[in-house]
C-alpha cells in the first residue's frame, strides 16, 4: 500500500487494523508473538488516530464512505473534532496499556490462552474505535456488540483466579444485551418515521417529523441503551464487579477506554442527531441526566470510601468520574461540553495509570489485593507507588495535575451556566474523594510488619510513567488537550 492510499483510508484503518489482526492473533499459540501483534495493531491504530487529529486541527470535518456508497445509502465514518479527539484518547490509552499487558496479563491467565486473549483485546480496541467513528446509528449497534462481547471474554478470563469473574461477565453480557436491544428499539422507532439511519441525515429529518411522540420515545430508548453502556448511575451495577474481577491488565484497558466511547456516543446522540429538538433534549438533560450524574458522583464516591478491595474502590471512583463527565455534558453549553471532553481525556489517563499501578502490585503479590495487603508497599515499590500517587492526586484534582484542569473547566462551565447549587455539590464531592485517596496513601506508607526487600516490576515502568508524566504534563501545559476539546465542543454545538 502506498502512502497516499494509507492517508486516504485513515478512518477505516483505525478500526480495521485491530479487527483484522485479531483473527491472526487468535491463531498464534505463542504468547509473545500474539502480544507483538497486539502492540503493532494498537500502535498502528494510535498512529492513524494521531494523523486524523492532525487533519481536523483546522476545524474541518470530512466523512469516509465505506464501500464508496454515499450516505444515507451506505455507511459513513465521520471524522470531525469530537470523534478524532475521542478516538485519539482511546487509541493512545489502548496502546499504552497494551505495552504493559504482556507481563501483567501473563501473570494472571494461562499461557495457552494468551493468543485468544490478545485477539479479544484487539477486538475490544477496534470495536470501541468503530463505535466512535461510525456515522450510522445501526452500525453503531454492531460495534456496541463487538466491544461488549469481547469485553465479556476479557472479563471472564479472570476466572482462572477468581470464579466470581464468571458472574461479572454474565451480568455484563445480559445487562449489556438488554441495553443494546433498548437502543435498537429506539433506532427502529426513529427509522419508522424518518426512513433513514445516517446520523447527519437523521439530524436534518427529525425536526420535520410530525409524530413528536415517536421521536421522543425513540430518543428515550436510544439514550436508555447508551446510559447502560456508559455505566451512568443507576444502571452502573455491572461496572464494579466487571472491573474488580477481570485480570488487572484488562481492568486497566476497560477503565481507560470502555465507558469513554459510550459517553461520546451519548454526546453525539444529544447534540448531533437530536439537535433539531432542543426543547426535548434540554428537558432530558436538565431533569434526567444532571440528577443521575449527581447521584452517580455521590453514590460512587461514598461507596468508594467504604470499599476495601482496591480494584473495586477504583471502579466505584470510576462511577463517580463518569458522573462528572455526564454532568459536564448536562450543562450543555459549549464550555460544559468542552469540560466533558477534557475530562474524558484526563480520566482515561488517570484511571489507566491507577489500574496499571494496581496491576504492578498484583503481579508482585500474585493475587487480588485489598487494602490491608497493600501495607507498606510504598516502601517496597517506591517507583511504582510514586506514579500511583501522581495519578491519585490528579484524580482528586490537585493543581498542576491534569485532574485539576478538568475540575477547573467544569467549575467554570457551571459558573457560566449559573448552576451554583450543583457547583457546591461538585466541590463537596471532590472533597469527599480526598477521603478514599487518603485511605490508600495512608496504607501504602505505613511501615509493614515484615521488612520485605525492595522489589519492583520494571517491565511495567514505561507504560506506568508515560501515564503519570502525562498527568503532570497536561496539568502544566494543558493547551493541546483543551484546544482539541474546545474544537470538539464547538463543532458539536454548531459553534455557539
Amino acid at each position, binding site marked *: 500500500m502506498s502512502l497516499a492510499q494509507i492517508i486516504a483510508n485513515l478512518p477505516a484503518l483505525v478500526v480495521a487494523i485491530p479487527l483484522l489482526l485479531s483473527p491472526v492473533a487468535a491463531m498464534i499459540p505463542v504468547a509473545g508473538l500474539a502480544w507483538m501483534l497486539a502492540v503493532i495493531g494498537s500502535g498502528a491504530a494510535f498512529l492513524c488516530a494521531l494523523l486524523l487529529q492532525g487533519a481536523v486541527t483546522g476545524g474541518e470535518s470530512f466523512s469516509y464512505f465505506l464501500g464508496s456508497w454515499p450516505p444515507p445509502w451506505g455507511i459513513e465514518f465521520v471524522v470531525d473534532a469530537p470523534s478524532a479527539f475521542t478516538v485519539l484518547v482511546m487509541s493512545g490509552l489502548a496502546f499504552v496499556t497494551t505495552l504493559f499487558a504482556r507481563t501483567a496479563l501473563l501473570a494472571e*491467565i494461562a499461557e495457552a490462552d494468551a493468543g*485468544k486473549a490478545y485477539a479479544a483485546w484487539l*477486538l475490544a480496541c477496534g470495536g470501541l474505535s468503530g463505535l466512535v467513528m461510525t456515522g450510522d446509528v445501526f452500525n453503531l449497534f454492531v460495534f456496541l456488540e463487538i466491544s461488549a*462481547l469481547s469485553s465479556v471474554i476479557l472479563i471472564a478470563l479472570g476466572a482462572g483466579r477468581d470464579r466470581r469473574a464468571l458472574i461479572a461477565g454474565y451480568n455484563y453480557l445480559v445487562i449489556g444485551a438488554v441495553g443494546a436491544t433498548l437502543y435498537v428499539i429506539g433506532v427502529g422507532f426513529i427509522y419508522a418515521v424518518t*426512513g433513514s439511519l445516517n446520523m447527519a441525515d437523521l439530524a436534518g429529518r427529525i425536526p420535520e417529523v410530525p409524530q413528536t411522540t415517536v421521536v421522543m420515545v425513540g430518543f428515550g430508548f436510544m439514550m436508555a441503551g447508551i446510559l447502560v453502556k456508559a455505566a451512568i448511575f443507576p444502571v452502573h451495577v455491572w461496572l464494579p464487579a466487571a472491573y474488580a474481577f477481570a485480570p488487572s491488565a484488562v481492568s486497566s484497558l476497560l477503565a481507560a477506554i470502555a465507558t469513554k466511547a459510550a459517553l461520546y456516543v451519548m454526546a453525539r446522540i444529544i447534540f448531533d442527531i437530536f439537535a433539531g429538538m432542543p426543547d426535548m433534549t434540554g428537558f432530558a438533560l436538565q431533569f434526567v441526566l444532571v440528577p443521575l450524574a449527581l447521584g452517580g458522583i455521590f453514590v460512587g464516591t461514598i461507596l468508594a470510601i467504604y470499599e476495601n478491595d482496591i480494584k473495586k474502590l477504583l471502579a466505584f471512583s470510576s462511577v463517580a468520574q463518569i458522573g462528572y463527565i455526564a454532568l459536564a455534558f448536562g450543562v450543555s453549553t459549549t464550555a460544559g461540553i468542552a469540560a466533558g471532553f477534557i475530562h474524558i481525556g484526563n480520566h482515561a489517563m488517570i484511571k489507566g495509570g491507577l489500574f496499571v499501578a494496581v496491576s504492578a502490585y498484583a503481579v508482585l503479590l500474585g493475587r487480588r489485593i485489598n487494602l490491608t495487603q497493600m501495607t507498606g508497599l510504598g516502601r517496597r515499590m517506591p517507583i511504582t507507588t510514586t506514579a500511583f500517587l501522581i495519578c491519585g492526586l490528579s484524580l482528586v484534582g490537585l493543581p498542576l495535575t491534569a485532574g485539576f484542569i478538568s475540575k477547573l473547566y467544569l467549575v467554570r462551565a457551571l459558573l457560566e451556566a449559573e448552576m451554583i447549587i450543583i457547583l457546591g455539590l461538585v466541590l463537596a464531592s471532590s472533597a469527599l474523594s480526598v477521603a478514599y485517596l487518603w485511605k490508600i496513601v495512608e496504607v501504602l506508607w505505613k511501615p509493614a510488619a515484615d521488612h520485605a526487600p525492595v522489589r519492583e516490576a520494571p517491565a511495567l515502568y514505561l507504560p506506568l510513567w508515560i501515564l503519570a508524566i502525562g498527568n503532570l504534563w497536561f496539568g502544566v501545559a494543558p493547551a493541546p488537550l483543551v484546544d482539541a476539546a474546545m474544537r470538539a465542543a464547538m463543532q458539536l454545538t454548531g459553534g455557539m
Partner: protein
Amino acid sequence: MAGYVTNLLLLALLVFILVLVIRTRRLFPVVVLAGAYSLVSAAMFVNLDAVDVAFTEAAVGAGISTVLFLAAMAYLPGIEKTPPEAKGIGHILPALIICIIAGLLLVAAAIELPPVGDPTAPPHVHVAPRYLEESGSFLHIPNVVTTVLASYRGFDTFGEVVVVFTAGLGVLVLLAGFTRTARIAKSGKTGIDGGEGDDA
C-alpha cells in the same frame, strides 16, 4: 386477506408461547418452547415478505440456538428453583413496573406510527427505493437483500462476521480453554482438555 389472517393467527401463537414460557418451571420445555417461538416468528417473517430473515431465523433461532441450549441442558439442573413470582408479588413488582412503563411508552409511540404496510411511510420513500432500483439495473443481482447486505451495508456485515468470530473465540476460551487456573497451567499440566477440547 390470507396474509392478514395468517398474521393474526401467528401473533396469537406467539403470545400463547410467551405465556407458556413465563409459566413453565421445567427448563427443558422452556428451551423447546423458545425454539418454537423462533420457528413461529420465522413463519411470520415469511408472511411479512422477509424471506431471507425467515431463512436465518429458522436456521439460527430454531436450529443452532436450540441445539446449543440442549447441549447445555445436559449439564444443568432441569428445573428452576422457586420462581420469583411464587415468592410473592414483591419479588416481581419492580420488573413489572419497569416493563409496564416501558410498554406504555412504546404503545403511545406505536399509535402514532404510520400503519403497517402504508406505502407512503418514510421508510418506503426515503432510502430504500434506490436499492430496489439499482440492484436490478446496475448490479444485476435480483436478491436486493443480498446486495444491500454485502455491498451497500457491507461494513455492517463485516461487523457481524466479527461478532460471530468473537462469540466463537469466547466459547473456545471459556469451554475448551485453559482458564481453570493460571497456576495449574504453569505447573506443567497445560492442556488437559479431556480429549475433545480445542487443541489449537
